[in-house]
């Protein structure tokens, strides 16, 4: 194995946690599926652990293993259109550093998110849903009342608060027009 590769692998292993999946596979964010696949094959040729099976340098072997696992991780995410779109959003946002490694929301987290959205108490949910219907029918004052009622059951629900504020603003607009 040549020395340049050794240096390159060691350096890559060092910065692995700072790179996004596009950087890991050395492709642009607009890469096509076939470009992703050939990049994956190219990186597999370079870093597949089988090539280094007989390598004596345990530290380097460990680094290569770490790199290759990340290459697989990148490929799994980017070859899937849905995951790729979400990932691209994640790493383009303010939380990029925290989201460099794609994590699918678990089944339970998804359920939790859904609950947070519409509420965790039956009464809260009831008033919140009624409020949403009022909003759709442009009965903003009624909507605001319902959202306020929902908030008495779940005072910390951010979704309830933002809907209440939204309804409040729309009432004012409504009055200025009249």
């Amino acid at each position, binding site marked *: *194995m040549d020395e340049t590769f050794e240096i390159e692998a060691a350096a890559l292993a060092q910065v692995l946690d700072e790179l996004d999946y596009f950087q890991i596979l050395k492709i642009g964010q607009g890469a096509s599926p076939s470009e992703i696949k050939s990049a994956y*094959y190219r990186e*597999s*040729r370079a870093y*597949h*652990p*089988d*090539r280094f*099976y*007989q*390598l004596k340098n345990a530290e380097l072997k460990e680094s290569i*293993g770490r790199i*290759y*696992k990340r290459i*697989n*991780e990148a*490929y*799994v995410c980017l070859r899937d259109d849905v995951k790729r779109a979400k990932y691209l959003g994640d790493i383009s946002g303010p939380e990029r550093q925290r989201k460099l490694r794609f994590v*699918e929301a*678990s*089944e*339970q987290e998804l359920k939790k998110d859904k609950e947070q959205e519409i509420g965790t108490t039956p009464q809260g949910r009831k008033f919140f849903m009624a409020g949403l219907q009022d909003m759709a029918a442009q009965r903003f004052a009624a909507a605001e009342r319902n959202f306020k009622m929902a908030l008495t059951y779940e005072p910390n629900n951010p979704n309830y608060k933002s809907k209440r504020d939204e309804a409040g603003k729309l009432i004012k607009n409504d009055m200025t027009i009249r």
Partner: protein
Amino acid sequence: MADGEIAIGIDLGTSYSCVSIIENGQPVVIPNEWGERTHASVVSFLEDGTVLVGNSAKRNIITNADNTVYSAKRLIGRFFFSDEVKKAQAVMPYKIIEGENNSVRIQIRENVYSLPEISALVLKEMKSIVENYLGHEVKKAVVTVPAYFNDNQRQATKDAGRIAGLEVLRILNEPTAAALAYGFGKDITQKIAVYDLGGGTFDISILEIGKDVFEVLSTAGDTYLGGDDFDDRIMTWLAEDFLKRHGIDLRLNKYCLQMLKEASERAKIDVGRDAVAKIKVEGICQDPTGKVMDLEATLTEAEFNRMVMDLVQRTFKVCDEALQSARMTASDLDAIILVGGPTRLPIIRTSVKHYFQKEPMAGIDPDEVVAMGAAIQAGSLMESKSDHYLLDVTPLTLRVGTVGGYTDKIIDKNTPIPIERSKSYTTNRDGQDKVKIRIYQGESNKASECELLGEFEFSGFRIAYRGEVRIEVTFEIDTNGIVHVTAADVETGQKTTTTIRLSSGLTEEMIRAAQAKTAATQLARGAAA
């Protein structure tokens, strides 16, 4: 290759095993001293303490039934309480007992063996076939397993290799090995399906082969479906017929059952080759008056096909699943490769042709191709640089137990390996000093419908108020498809101590004891025939 040292490729099958090495750059199957190229995966413990393995041992299934173990692969890596073990207890003439930690053990006279120890004896025989041929010792091997084997089964197979005195370079998936043997040195670009129907298991893998890349796109399987099930159908048919005619149920006597089983396997092979099988077993039992009775029947191809049609259909359900995971249809495939003895049956060949709308590849020996692929991989791992890459996947979704008997996905099935994924946990009691998790493999979010891999306990982190300590648990699936779990304290980065609390596997201590025991076991040479 380093110092002329070689590594062998072993196909450790449910019914038959095969061994291959690379000679002059090509994989060749090594026959034993009697010219046999495949060897029954049967271990017969003789009175004098020696052990017979292979086709000569198979002849002892009837005469030395209590002390002859076959189809051990159906039991390896399973918990004692599993259905497969219960089923085996009902039909196997040898004694299956419970060992510690819900494990399975086999009792032969006053000795107790673990399943890896039994498989180790088969591996030891494969090792000595090559050693006889080469005239020197071999120490390294690639051993194949069904692609759909879970972590427990893979780990147990690896342990078997170690017990046999082999360094297992890789646990390789059987269909992947077959694809490697097919594409090796061919310089082709194809999408292929490997349809692997063995003695006890069925696997289908969809691969994309490039110039130097073998990428597994998906794999699916059924570890409860194989040629043995075809034999069972014939057996039931013969036994029911005999019962109707003579009022005697042959299945109630383990001795008669074995004769029936043997006759059924022969009938399956005959009907596949000649379209009709004449079955005759002389002296299968005695009637209540002591008169010796014979079993006689004729099995036609049409009759046989009717008996097994649902089993054949089941394989295609699995094929549907694999194609769907690979986001393909049958028409996208360039070639179909058949692996495993039962794929010689005309019913399989025509059904496969019909399903894939393509003639399966000719010129591939379904009994030998897996061992040859294993030899190619063994050879390439021994060289400092390999000229092809196997990109394989994990067959089952890795899960972690949550509250109320549910599980959460950690790593999806058909994810390329090696791979890792971390998940963090916080303590939920003040002063908590241990975190316990259970991990599973399977496709259901209910823990009871998945296979339990083990319970891990992490300790040695900071003791603090609840919620203050975060433990990051890392789940890794290595290139063998074997799962590793480690944990670290997020804040300090300190690795925790991991204890495996529940596992079907063997401890290091047990493996070392088994190594010594197996090394001391004499394999009887000399044909029993």
